[in-house]
């Protein structure tokens, strides 16, 4: 049995999640500050990939990155091909998992007690320092669970990946694609191996999420009921 889909899945989902982590946090931080209808519009645009079928995202990505797209055309002239590569798979995973990270981070930042931020300001901390030392650590449980959700989503990505990265065994064939191909080829046992592996991975991730959520509730409780 060819184990390459496991490696391809991990080497796609992990970098994609790292990218999503920073992009999601950045967007959550910046877009909350954009007031008015423009802010709302951006918010909807960034959340859109979550509700659209992944094939729609795949289609749009193909338009952009394909030979006739912008910036695809110029990249092509520079000799950089993105479509049907690992990079394309990573981009697809980022686009699809981004809204989960963005939403979770935004919600988590909004939950941070504003008086902590005010306290930081009156104590002379810079906005940057306030973010890294106060907002982010106190929003960590929400940010962490958003990251895990994003990782799970990136690992499970199928539609957009199929369209933009293709299904090239040994190059862009991830586990979800391998399941599909195995079933198409009548290799049910092989599909079963991937299915069980994905279930096990997802199980572990949900377990981790529950752990973070519990830790979060515990620290909250202690804050609200100081021992006397």
């Amino acid at each position, binding site marked *: 049995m060819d184990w390459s889909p496991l490696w391809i899945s991990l080497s796609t989902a992990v970098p994609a999640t790292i990218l999503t982590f920073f992009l999601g946090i950045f967007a959550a931080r910046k877009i909350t500050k954009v007031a008015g209808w423009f802010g709302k519009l951006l918010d909807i645009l960034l959340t859109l990939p979550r509700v659209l079928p992944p094939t729609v995202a795949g289609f749009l990505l193909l338009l952009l990155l394909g030979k006739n797209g912008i910036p695809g055309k110029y990249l092509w002239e520079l000799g950089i091909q993105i479509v049907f590569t690992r990079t394309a798979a990573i981009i697809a995973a980022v686009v699809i998992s981004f809204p989960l990270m963005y939403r979770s981070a935004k919600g988590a930042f909004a939950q941070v007690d504003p008086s902590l931020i*005010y*306290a930081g*300001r009156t*104590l*002379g901390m*810079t906005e940057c320092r306030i973010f890294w030392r106060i907002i982010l650590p*106190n929003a960590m449980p929400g940010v962490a669970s958003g990251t895990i959700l994003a990782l799970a989503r990136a690992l499970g990505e199928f539609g957009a990946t199929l369209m933009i990265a293709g299904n090239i065994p040994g190059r862009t064939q991830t586990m979800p694609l391998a399941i599909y191909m195995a079933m198409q080829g009548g290799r049910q046992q092989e599909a079963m191996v991937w299915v069980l592996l994905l279930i096990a991975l997802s199980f572990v991730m949900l377990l981790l999420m529950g752990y973070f959520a519990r830790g979060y509730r515990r620290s909250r409780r*202690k804050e609200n009921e100081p*021992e006397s």
Partner: protein
Amino acid sequence: MSLKVEIRKRYRDFELAVSFDTAGSSLGLLGASGCGKSLTLKCIAGVVTPEEGRIILNDRILFDAEKKINLPPKDRRVGLMFQHYALFPNMTVRGNIEAGIRRKEKRRLMLEYLTMMLRLEGKLERYPYQLSGGEQQRVALARMLANEPEALLFDEPFSALDAYLKNQLQQELLGVLREYQGDILMVSHNREELYRFCNKIVVAHQGRVIESGDKAELFGHPRLLTTAILTGCKNISRARKLTDYSVEALDWKLRLVTDRPVEDWVNHVGIRAHNLRPALDGERDNTLSVLWAELAEGPFENQYLLRCSSGEGACSLSWIVARKEWQGGLEKQAPARIMLPAESLLLLTDSNP
């Protein structure tokens, strides 16, 4: 040493328009919840920007809407202690205090000094949730002082504590603040707290300063009905001026002689529950025949609700009397007439300036 504040800030359908001057002493801002006290402190600290006015601390302009000056919070040198302290839950006590240290090169010295002054030895590596309410408050104070502020602002500093702890902490804080050189501004809805900590008191109501003055004068002779209520006066009646030294209490159906001249603006009269006493034989002026209605027993003093026998159903007075006094005779025979001493009457008006 002074903090001059004169600001206007709209917030939804609420408008804050306050002005006061600490004039080198500790100032208390008294008001019911929602009167804009916290908002005022946030404006001074610079985390909220007012629309109009100016804030001047020791000749340094922190904010001036006309001159377009608005110093960022970090340059204001104003320390603000938040209602629930706002300690950083992800940092230890050491981290919290160090976050406030202004001159980083003095980090070690400052930390040692504050740890000693606020008795935080052995607590430096703990997290805020592992501390008692009192310890949390001391950490908040240490963090604020580490920033070397020129003025200290306190937002309801004792509201998060139970009564026993509150008393102890108030004594402690008084001790620490005695050494402090800058201005102090404390806001609270608790009159006793402010009386303890401040020399001058400003009364705020619905976003405006309605009365201010020396604390003894303000508690002894408030001019406004709202001030009387906020400073704890429980007995109030509508009133009408009769002569220069007498009024008619309309709700109590009683003519009252005063020891202060009655101004034309007087339209209410009040008396604190502590200041009532049983009428002596032969006393007619300022007395009222009463019936016992309710008793609320306290550990050291009892509070009675007296119903006037002459007036209508709504007429009642609240009387607080020390238990000792009560047991020394009053217990056996309740007085049928109650005295409202002329020197204790508050002559009030309900029209705000």
